[in-house]
């Protein structure tokens, strides 16, 4: 029983990181109808931002987080202006290719400026974790789960209870109608990129103490996060979170009870199963049911 609980805890912790990155995928998809394949690199940049501010500049951890997230917000705006905005009137494919190009550029840009050496980053707390009768709760995983939970609640309140959130929702649902109603669509899309970059940055900051900081960090997470967003129903926010958690838990249990070498396969077996049996995902509607 304690092993199952241990695996569940770890799976939720890893799954929460997938969920955070998946949220970025979904939010940008809802706002622009394209998939941003550089979402994983946002996490990598967030992790490097922390290394530069805390290890390089010697700033306190909390200040490092604030500066990194501020930099990520600025980066999200620039990403929108450089990668999406010039192609906004083009079809799906050129924009997707543009984001793939941006992800390659970001990875190699960091490699060229920072170098290939992986860096270490301390966790949010010096405490190793809590021990409850054989169940070890790693402090970093606890932080990941708690912060994800808070972000999800804040995000829900923002989208459902604020005018700005409703404007963002309106933009994602029908850009033309939103524009006719006087909503600044370009501004809303800019805000979505800014928020997605910050979310990616938070995911990178949270996972870096566990996986180390390297240029491969983004790719390591992004593929699973992408699968999570499809499993949840692409474009669906609760679905992205549930998909991320499901993948984290299933791959952790599968690795322990079935086989570790096939750990990465479980996420994609689940993905295939959903694509075959429930292509609309966990919470998505069937296309035929939409008005």
């Amino acid at each position, binding site marked *: 029983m304690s092993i199952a609980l*241990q695996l569940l805890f770890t799976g939720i912790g890893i799954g929460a990181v997938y969920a955070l990155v998946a949220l970025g995928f979904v939010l940008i998809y809802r706002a622009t109808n394209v998939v941003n394949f550089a979402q994983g690199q946002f996490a990598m940049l967030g992790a490097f931002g922390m290394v530069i501010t805390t290890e390089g500049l010697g700033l306190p951890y909390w200040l490092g987080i604030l500066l990194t997230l501020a930099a990520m917000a600025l980066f999200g705006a620039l990403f929108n202006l450089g990668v999406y905005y010039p192609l906004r009137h083009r079809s799906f494919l050129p924009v997707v290719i543009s984001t793939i190009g941006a992800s390659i550029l970001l990875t190699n840009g960091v490699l060229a400026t920072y170098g290939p050496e992986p860096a270490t980053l301390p966790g949010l707390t010096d405490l190793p974790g809590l021990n409850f009768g054989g169940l070890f709760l790693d402090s970093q995983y606890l932080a990941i789960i708690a912060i994800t939970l808070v972000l999800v609640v804040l995000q829900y309140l923002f989208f459902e209870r604020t005018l700005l959130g409703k404007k963002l929702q309106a933009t994602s649902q029908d850009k033309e109608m939103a524009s006719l109603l006087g909503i600044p669509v370009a501004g809303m899309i800019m805000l979505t990129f800014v928020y997605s970059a910050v979310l990616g940055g938070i995911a990178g900051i949270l996972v870096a103490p*566990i996986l180390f900081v390297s240029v491969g960090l983004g790719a390591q997470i992004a593929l699973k996060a992408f699968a999570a967003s499809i499993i949840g129903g692409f474009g669906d926010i609760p679905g992205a979170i549930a998909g991320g958690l499901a993948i984290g838990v299933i791959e952790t249990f599968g690795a322990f009870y079935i086989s570790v*070498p096939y750990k990465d396969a479980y996420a994609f077996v689940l993905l295939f199963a959903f694509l075959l049996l429930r292509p609309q995902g966990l919470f998505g509607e069937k296309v035929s049911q939409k008005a």
Partner: protein
Amino acid sequence: MPHHHGHSRCRAALAGLPLAGLALIGSVLTSTARAQDILIGMATPLTGAAAESGRYAQWGAEMAVAEVNAAGGVLGRKLKLVIEDDQTSNPGIVAAFNRLASDPQIAVFLGSIRSTQVHAMDPDVRRVAKPVFFGGTDPLLTQAGDPWLFRARPNDSYSAKVIAAFGVETLHLQKWAIISSSDAFGSSGARLLTADLAALGIKPITQQSYPNQAADFTPVVLSVKNSGADAIGSYFTFEQDLGVFARQARQFGLRTTWVGSPSIADTAALHLAGPALWGTYGVADFNADSSPETHTFAEKYLALHHVPADNFGGWTYDSIHLAAIAIAAAKTTEPAKLRAAILAIQGYKGVEGTYDFDAQGDGLHGYNVVHNDHGKIVFVKRVDFPKP
């Protein structure tokens, strides 16, 4: 106007002649200098998961090239490295090797320290038919009949023997867990270690393999902890995986004695895992205190690059010197004569050990045992085996 225009074009052409002449002379001089250099092609990871170790490998090779050239070169010619990025991937190294091999002036190549990549490039090595030094430790690489592969590190038949013998006979460990990556290197290492433990009358109580770049090792750590193992024998391919495992093992209170393959004692692993590796043992082809040659190299490397030397720089450093010795002995870069000259190298004291090439192309036949004493890698002993 057309006449005038024709004149100016003519003048421009005449004025350009000296420049063209200079460019031509420059080009001839450059190609003559290049023709006089002995080119060594090196495929190494400059990007991808192993980019850090690729840089160390490059530094080691460059140090040796500088030393050979400072001593007058080989056959009166300078050595020159031509480097291609293998992107830490099998397709990457195949492409990198073929780009290098398309230059007919390259006489000798340096391949990869990762067995899976050497397996991938092997068909092209046979086709190109020129000597390739490599560092991958899967024993099968030199047993598959490719006459052009030469190993500048000891293979895993020795590392497994040393891990098993040291763990069982010196540390008296009986209940073994084997952890290995699921690639060619890890699978081969796990198979050999299982066989060598069996020879000592021990059957591992659990075997765990994992995919490279695994984000989380909780299932592996819990499996080992639940097995009641008193020993871990490991073959980790990438230091980041080793670091994640070491830290999680420590967090979950897994205090099992750990004897690992060389990655457990290399610079990148020590940097990433830190105290999580304290108290572990490893077999290491490179150790700064194992010989005077190694010590001198390690000091020079540290002074130049400000990081401690390890096997990544060690095997490429030795490979360049071995190539230089073979070219000097063969008095030519003709591949067949070069191959014979490499196989004839006996008793050469490199930084990875003393090279006695056997007929299959293996140069080294032993390992150092090292101990991580609060982050410092301490030499325990050297174990050499007779050349087969």
